[in-house]
């Protein structure tokens, strides 16, 4: 009995109680599973995994669109944020595939505006994180996002190597990955000159430790996939 007062189930109003928060949860879970017994979607759908791994409950979304309305990056997206969730709600491979191939998941800036205003408190940014990872894992990342992907990879790589972000190195790596050699040529020298870009990686972090963290994280992921 977590918090009895939070549990509005009442003999007098079963009806409203079902809608009530605390009880709504269990109610939902069960119906969610009954709805598609044994089917792929029930246990392995992205929605189900997101609920298990990310603790984001896709079914909570009732498609009011408030997230899409406030999203600063929506203009860049091929699929609006709320629609990305919709694609997961159907729990069909076809739609999940569309979500994972979407440009939208890469255009999300992670500004958290959506979750801040979401009436159902659905953690959309977390869902986006999850989809990006899944999209990479399944090699479905949208081509037009290759530069964004490259940036994130370069970023992570840099941390893994040095334990801290080595901006110049990272940007270099990024350029090699993308071939945008001349982009930013304007600012980089000035940055250097203004002392905003260090020429050498920063020391100080415990590189070995960080490398190990990465290694173990990878191992853990392999495990969970197997």
């Amino acid at each position, binding site marked *: 009995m977590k918090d009895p007062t939070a549990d509005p*189930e*009442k003999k007098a109003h079963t009806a409203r109680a079902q809608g009530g928060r605390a009880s709504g949860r269990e109610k939902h879970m069960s119906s969610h599973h009954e709805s598609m017994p044994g089917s792929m979607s029930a246990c392995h759908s992205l929605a189900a995994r997101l609920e298990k791994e990310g603790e984001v409950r896709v079914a909570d979304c009732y498609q009011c669109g408030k997230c899409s309305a406030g999203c600063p990056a929506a203009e860049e997206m091929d699929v609006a944020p709320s629609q990305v969730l919709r694609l997961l709600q159907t729990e069909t491979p076809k739609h999940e595939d569309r979500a994972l191939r979407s440009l939208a998941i890469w255009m999300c800036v992670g500004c958290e505006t959506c979750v801040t205003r979401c009436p159902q408190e659905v953690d959309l940014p977390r869902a986006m994180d999850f989809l990006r990872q899944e999209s990479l894992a399944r090699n479905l990342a949208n081509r037009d996002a290759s530069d964004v992907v490259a940036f994130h990879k370069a970023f992570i790589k840099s941390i893994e190597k040095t334990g801290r972000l080595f901006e110049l190195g990272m940007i270099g790596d990024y350029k090699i990955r993308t071939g945008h050699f001349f982009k930013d040529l304007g600012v980089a020298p000035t940055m250097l000159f203004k002392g905003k870009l260090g020429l050498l990686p920063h020391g100080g972090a415990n590189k070995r430790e960080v490398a190990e963290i990465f290694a173990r994280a990878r191992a853990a992921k392999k495990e969970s996939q197997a």
Partner: protein
Amino acid sequence: MADPFEPKMTAFVCNWCTYAGADLTGTSRIKYQSNVRVIRLPCTGRIDFMLVMKAFSRGSDGVIISGCHPNDCHYTSGNYHARRRWMVFRDLMDFMGIDLRRVTFSWVSAAEGAKWAELVNEATNTVRALGPYKEVQQLAVAGID
């Protein structure tokens, strides 16, 4: 040799929430283990915790106490009294060496048929795992209760 141990479970429930909830379990045909014997009282507030001691000394291996959710007592506050008394009594029982894992205190509303089934099954399984409550029963046999 002897058949596997089946615990004796005694449940003290209020008439308005949990008893009705258990009725709902029935009308919705949800199955649960048959070890439990229900004693119907008007309200959990009516539960004199001597009853719990008595239940053990009479050979119950486990006890379930359940009534209306807080704020939902048919008698407005009986369940609060029960809860308050339970808080105190729990410590006392602990002090007396009663194994608290054998006592389950919960709320089941008239709308929670499924919850009643779960509650009974969980409690019964726990107690089955704990085995017969010899300690107290022997005392009882020895006439100390």
